[in-house]
């Protein structure tokens, strides 16, 4: 017989191996977290790398002769003349003055393309504010066209080969000449945050989609939270456990797994076709997303209600609180943080949801910023989808910028939720 080891020797012998295992076990967790963080960093780096340039916009300074004759304004007190005035004409004159060598028709048209076709409106706004400028010569900064914008941005950031796209040598010559004049400048892109969608990238903004998302989410929250909580309260507190409630429970879980596009079809069939509600409006979008969010809210609310210690219920019942008082005074306040978490998860899902909204027409090209829940609008993810599909190069950076806005929206929502939950939890 070999020497028999005592228990403590055996324990010590195995100790090293046990510690190694512990370390490995912990390393798995750390590795998973690192993987998650890495994905996040790559995602953010990519989006921010592509999208940050959309927050700047190229402007060109033009020396414009604002002759009343060229504008076609004879009476500065007549507002209708300001509406009809030939702003594009004077801007074109200014361009021709700068590049007198251009005289072929086709070349001229290309030349006019340096500035955005929204520049006329910019000039109109200026003159409506300051009619005394008529018959003077002013330097104004106007929006550059998106192709030149893209060229200028890629040129200055690298200093090397710029993105020329469809440009001819002459076009590059023009913009280089303007740059050499020092009349090209990048400024903060206010349009992006103030305008609705547009076919012209330099005039396109995210505000329409942002407001659309906001209205849609408000409708979704206002409908889904009370309905979800009420359903959860009934199922947890009142409903008897029987086949029927089991059936309901199974179906709520099923509902959570139904593909969202089917909710879109349902919304199209019921709200738009049957109830004849208008297309493309946040009200219908909100109702459809409510259907989608409800299961999430119900399931998490039920879990939160279940987690309220039974002793609290008993205590309240024991001194003669009615069922409703137990629920309103004790169960709901204690379950509220959990229910809010569920609601926020549901809302975050709803914010990112695209498919059902496509079907109810929120994919339409809508230029105006919506002013209410019944104005046609689109939402952030749909806007991202629309822009990512656009051929213009300048929409690439705008797509990424829109994603950044969407993520910002999400971060704000989640932060709010966490803060709110902390506040409520402190009452424990």
């Amino acid at each position, binding site marked *: 017989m070999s020497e028999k080891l005592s228990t403590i020797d055996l324990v010590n012998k195995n100790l090293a191996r046990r510690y190694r295992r512990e370390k490995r076990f912990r390393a798995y967790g750390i590795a998973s977290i690192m993987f998650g963080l890495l994905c996040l960093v790559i995602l953010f780096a990519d989006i921010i790398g592509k999208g940050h340039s959309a927050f700047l916009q190229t402007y060109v300074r033009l020396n414009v002769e604002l002759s009343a004759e060229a504008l076609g304004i004879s009476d500065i007190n007549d507002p209708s003349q300001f509406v009809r005035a030939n702003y594009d004409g004077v801007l074109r004159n200014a361009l021709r003055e700068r590049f007198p060598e251009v005289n072929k028709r086709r070349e001229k048209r290309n030349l006019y393309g340096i500035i955005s076709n929204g520049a006329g409106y910019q000039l109109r706004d200026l003159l409506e504010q300051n009619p005394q400028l008529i018959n003077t010569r002013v330097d104004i900064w106007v929006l550059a066209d998106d192709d030149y914008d893209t060229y200028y941005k890629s040129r200055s950031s690298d200093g090397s080969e710029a993105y020329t796209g469809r440009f001819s040598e002459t076009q590059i010559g023009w913009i280089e000449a303007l740059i050499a004049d020092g009349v090209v400048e990048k400024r903060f892109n206010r349009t992006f945050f103030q305008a609705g969608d547009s076919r012209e990238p330099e005039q396109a903004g995210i505000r329409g989609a942002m407001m659309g998302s906001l209205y849609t989410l408000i409708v979704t929250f206002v409908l889904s939270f009370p309905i979800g909580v009420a359903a959860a309260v009934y199922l947890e507190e009142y409903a*008897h*456990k029987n086949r029927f409630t089991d059936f309901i429970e199974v179906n709520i879980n099923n509902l959570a797994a139904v593909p969202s596009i089917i909710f879109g079809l349902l919304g199209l069939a019921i709200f738009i076709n049957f109830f004849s509600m208008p297309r493309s409006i946040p009200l219908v979008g909100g109702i459809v997303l409510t259907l989608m969010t409800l299961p999430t809210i119900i399931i998490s609310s039920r879990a939160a209600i279940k987690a309220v*210690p039974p*002793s*609290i*219920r*008993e*205590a*309240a*019942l*024991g*001194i*003669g*609180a*009615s069922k409703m*008082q137990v629920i309103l*005074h*004790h169960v709901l306040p*204690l379950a509220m943080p959990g229910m809010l978490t569920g609601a926020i998860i549901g809302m975050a899902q709803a914010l990112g949801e695209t498919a059902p909204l496509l079907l109810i027409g929120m994919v339409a090209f809508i230029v105006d910023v919506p002013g209410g829940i019944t104005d046609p609008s689109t939402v952030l993810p749909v806007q991202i989808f629309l822009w990512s599909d656009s051929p213009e190069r300048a929409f690439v950076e705008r797509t990424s910028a829109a994603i950044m806005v969407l993520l910002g929206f999400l971060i704000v929502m989640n932060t709010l939720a966490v803060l709110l939950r902390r506040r409520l939890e402190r*009452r*424990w």
Partner: protein
Amino acid sequence: MEATVGSANTIGKLNSEAPVSKATANYKEQAAGKTVGIPFVEHPKMSMRDVQVYYGDKQAIFDVGLDIGKNEVVAMIGPSGCGKSTFLRCLNRMNDTIDICRVEGSLKLEELDIYDPKLDVVPLRARVGMVFQKPNPFPKSIYDNVAYGPRIHGLVSRKSELDEIVETSLRRAGLWEEVKDRLLSPGTGLSGGQQQRLCIARTIAVSPEVILMDEPCSALDPIATAKIEELIAELSANFTIAIVTHSMQQAARVSDRTAYFHLGKLIEVNETEKVFTNPDHELTEAYITGRFG
């Protein structure tokens, strides 16, 4: 007080001189038959007859008949799972919260039929309050804990009256001196014993006629337990109390009569002193001498 001290001493004696000769082989058989002792009193506050309780198909309480006299303290003892807590919870219909629980028999609070289907449990529970095993203050301030009952029942119309009720209740629960400077701090921040006294204050704030206590000291240390027991003795001047306890010493110290439950049956009810010195039933004796439990 003297009487309780006496009983405690007799228990000590009993434990050492316990006769072991009695047959205790088949307790199940012995449990059959009528309750011995004096289960019924004249002019009871609560009177229960032929009470059967079922959990689904399983019967938990068999033919229990018991009276609780006015301003009396009745202790219910017995091994775990004997049905004493179940029985106690029938007295203010706390068993209603359990879906599968069914109660039969006649249970009366004075002339009121407790299990009348038309009866509203809210006023019943205002008359029959309950203190639970684990201290369960609401996650609110001490003041709001005590004020909760009077508020929901609309017992007061002015803040000053409410203040008065809160102070009286806390004083009666022996907690006032300890918490009077921090009435607005959370009730959950108190120690275990203080929390339980807070729960008692909360119960007596609605001035119930009967207080049910379900092992109120089982989660407390001996000093906190002693305080609660003292409190029960004081409260018995104004309230009728039914207390379930695992501690025989506690039953001996606080109660007037003691009821011994065994496997869902009420075996014996007698004057507390008699139960602990000279019980009528063999099972009771076996239990109090610690031969099982």
